[in-house]
Every structure is written in C-alpha cells, then in structure tokens.
C-alpha cells in the first residue's frame, strides 16, 4: 500500500483505457480565441460555460464591437451606429481573459499566438474567428485610399457612416451605384438589402434619384423575393444589372467615382464598391487558408484541414452550404466549443446539426428570410433535404411585417447571447 506496485499500475491503466485519457490535464488546458465577433465571442463564452476550468483567452483588437447585421439600416438613415455597438464586459465577468491587441503571428508547431504588444500565448487549441479582409488586389483601381471616395461599408463603423453622409449630401436626381462581388463573400443577401434600403431612402427623400446594382453574378440570395419587392416598392428607384447583361465591374476610377464594365462607364454621384474578400490576414499567417483565400475545415469539429489544433469558424471558414452570416457564425461557434471541450477531454465530438436563419429588410416594415438546416455529409456541411428555404412569394403584407418584427427580435436576441 505504500508504493504503487506493478499490479496497481496495471489497474490504473485499465481504468484509463475504459475512460480515454485526456490529451492534456484539463484544468490546465488553454484555449485561445482570435476575433471577438459573432463567432469568436460566442465560442469563448460557450467554452467557459461548458468547462469553467478551461483557461480561455480572447484576442480582439477593438474594445468596441460594431455589428454588421442591420448596418444597412444605418446607411438609409433608419438606425444609429450606437445601436450596433457592444463591449466585452460580460465576457470578462464570465472569467474570459481578453487581450485587446491584434494577433500578428501564429506558430502552429509551437502552438503559440503572438500579439502586436509582444505577448506570446501558448494554446492547446486555437480558435480562429478573424472574419474577412477586403482584397485590395481584387478590383483594379480599388485601393484603401479609393475606399474614402467610394466606400465599401462592408465592415461596419466609419465606412458605414461615410456612405450614409454621401447619400445625405447627394442632390436629388443623383445616381447611386453599388458594385456587388462574385461568390463567396460575407453576407450573401447584404448587397440587395442595401440596395433596397437605399431605394427606400431615395423614394422617400430624393425621389428623382436611382440606385443601380452592377453585379458580378447572374443569381443571388433570396433573388425572387427581392425582385418581387423591388417591382412593387421601387419600380423607378432601383435597377439590377446581372453579369450576363454586362454588370460585372472590371475597374474603378475613384477621382471621378466612375465604375467601368466591359460595355459601359458609370459615373456615380455615390458609389458603393463591395470588393472581393478573403479570410482575414491572421488566417494566412497561421497557414490555414487555401488557394481560394478561405479556410477549409473538418465538417464535424471545424478543425483546420491544414493545421492540427487550430479551428476556424465564422466568415473566414469554408462551411459547405452554410452562408457567411452572423447567425451561422454564432451557431458554428457553439458547435466548435462543444467539439473543442470534447477533444480536450479526450472524448469524441458528436456529429453536429446547425441552423442558419438570415433576415433581410426590403423596407422598414418588410422582412424576408432564408433558413437552412445543415449536417455533415461526405465531409461537407450540407442542407438537410426537405428543410430550409425562403419566405413564400406573393405573401400577404402581414407576413412581411411579421418577418420585419422578427428580424429586430433576432438582432436583440443574438447580441444579448454574444455580448449581454
């Protein structure tokens, strides 16, 4: 009894075999989450809730998060930027350590993250939720300086306000042009919700004006519903030009706010250029991006297919049929947290099921949705057959009003879960 002899050791080993040995002593396990948006902040909180013994550190460069969903309503003068802004106090109260500095390097071999302030953090599992970067090499003429004249407003904040101010100072009769990118990009219905709400603003405030959407695609999210609404609400104020009708913008000239296609030159009073996108830079530095610029991940755990112990969630990841939405990011984050907690405990993650619901406003009292249910199939997150789809066409006004009300409720709920 004084010393553990060989027989005791075998007994202990047998016990360990029955309950798979944790990869690391769990009380010491460290998870670092990079990015404090819908994906990262959700994941950090879910991890801490699943296992309070985990050391969870969130890396985020800004002390205030500005949410993208509903930011199109700000552009149209229907909402204030402060309604989109959230802090991280409740995450700190949950016991999450937060380092407000950009991550500048990831070493997948040493399992370390380095921050701009010199801090180096070791991790057992790293969750990257960095969101997107705009491809400044993706559209000739569209540089960071050009975005001051032709805002993208595709990361909510100062750019959102800039586009709003430009619309407000535009004279009636002006031409607003939106350039929409090819797939994939953040928020697939976003450009069309934006066109709708800008048309609403023009119709009510500057009725001789028009918004023109130049598109690098022939089809887009909720297309039938948007087009039905545009015909009914904005026949004189909104026009969409598809790829096959020459809609693809091939270059821009910021000095004159000109957008160039293969067939035409459009000189805009206000130009909103939504450029091609890719996973944010830190994903490249962590060597988890592929040639597309996005991050391939396992469909069960969202662990990178390129680097073990690094998981990628949210807009930066390739998630099969799931769109790059805040709802998806939040849902993926909770599944990822459960998988990470299981893996750290030496347990097998469950096969996940995920939901996405995505609201768009065509007018303040006119909402439409797309929803989907997803599960892994042949290694890819795939729509569950028979589920999901878009709102009905030819629906009564009451349905559109109800979806606008639910859209507001959704925003309140998800931001309360993530930041409240």
């Amino acid at each position, binding site marked *: *009894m004084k010393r*553990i*002899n060989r027989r*005791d050791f*075998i*007994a*202990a080993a*047998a*016990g*360990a075999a029955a*309950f*798979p040995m*944790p990869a690391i*002593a*769990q*009380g010491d396990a460290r998870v670092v989450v990079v990015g404090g948006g819908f994906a990262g902040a959700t994941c950090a909180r*879910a991890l801490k809730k*699943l*296992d309070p013994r985990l050391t969870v550190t969130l890396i985020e460069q800004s002390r205030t998060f500005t949410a993208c969903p509903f930011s199109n309503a700000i552009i149209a003068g229907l909402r204030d930027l402060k309604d989109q802004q959230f802090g991280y106090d409740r995450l700190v109260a949950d016991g999450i350590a937060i380092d407000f500095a950009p991550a500048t390097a990831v070493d997948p071999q040493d399992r370390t993250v380095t921050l701009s302030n010199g801090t180096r953090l070791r991790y057992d599992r790293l969750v990257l939720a960095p969101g997107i970067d705009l491809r400044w090499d993706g559209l000739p003429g569209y540089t960071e300086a050009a975005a001051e004249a032709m805002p993208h407003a595709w990361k909510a904040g100062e750019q959102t306000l800039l586009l709003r101010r430009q619309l407000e100072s535009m004279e009636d009769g002006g031409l607003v042009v939106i350039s929409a990118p090819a797939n994939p990009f953040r928020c697939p219905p976003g450009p069309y919700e934006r066109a709708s709400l800008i048309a609403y603003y023009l119709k009510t405030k500057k009725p001789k004006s028009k918004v023109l959407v130049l598109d690098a695609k022939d089809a887009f999210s909720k297309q039938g519903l948007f087009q039905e609404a545009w015909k009914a609400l904005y026949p004189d104020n909104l026009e969409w030009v598809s790829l096959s009708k020459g809609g693809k913008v091939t270059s821009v000239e910021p000095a004159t706010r000109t957008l160039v296609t293969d067939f035409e030159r459009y000189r805009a009073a206000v130009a909103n250029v939504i450029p091609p996108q890719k996973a944010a830079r830190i994903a490249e530095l962590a060597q988890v991006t592929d040639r597309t610029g996005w991050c391939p991940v396992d469909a069960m755990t969202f662990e990178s297919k390129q680097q073990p112990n690094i998981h990628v969630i949210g807009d930066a990841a390739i998630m099969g049929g799931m769109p790059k939405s805040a*709802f998806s990011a*939040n*849902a993926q984050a*909770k*599944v990822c947290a*459960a998988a990470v*907690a*299981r893996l*750290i*405990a*030496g*347990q097998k993650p*469950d*096969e*996940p*099921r*995920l*939901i996405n*619901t995505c609201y768009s406003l065509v007018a303040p009292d006119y909402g439409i*949705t797309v929803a*989907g*249910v997803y*599960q892994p199939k042949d290694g890819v997150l795939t729509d*569950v057959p*028979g*589920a*999901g*789809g878009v709102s009905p066409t030819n629906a009564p006004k009451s*349905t559109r009003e*109800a*979806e606008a*009300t*639910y859209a*507001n*409720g*959704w925003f*309140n*709920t998800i931001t*309360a*879960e993530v930041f*409240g």
Partner: protein
Amino acid sequence: MHRIGIFAAATILALSGPARSADAPPGATSCTGCHPATRADTPVPRLNGRDAAQTIAAMTEFRTGKRPATVMDRIAKGFTEDETKAIAAWFAAQKD
C-alpha cells in the same frame, strides 16, 4: 491495493470533463440565436425551462403545417421526431 486502482480510475473520470448527459443534443445550441437563452426584446418565446411537451407539440405542428409560421415551418422539417424530443428535453432542463 485495488483501492489505488479504483482511485486512479475515478480521478481520471473526474478529470475527463463535463458529463456527457449535460451536452446539448445535435441542433439544440443553434436555437438560442433566435430563442433567447436569458432575456431579450423579441416576440420569440424562450425555450430554456419550457415544458418539453409544449416544445414537441409546437415543432410537430410546424412540421405538418398545422401551426402558422414564418421560419419555423422550414426549420422544423430538418429534425425528426426523436431529434426534436431530445432537443425539447434538453431545453426543459436548462434553468438559467
């Protein structure tokens, strides 16, 4: 001597993380994107602490089209009866 073995096994068990029974069934964690886990200004009902039979009945009626819906008719079709029961039971047990 056996006691040491049992103790070691118990220790490993204790360290091996949250009990499996507490884990959310597939799909459940997505719901709180719209159904508030705590409090939020929304017409959408809370599922946490809600009687499982109520949740199951609502999901069944959404699936068959008997209950009017905006998105829930489309979402309910992504879950079988057994999957719905597991989700409803898990939410019923969530008290916070």
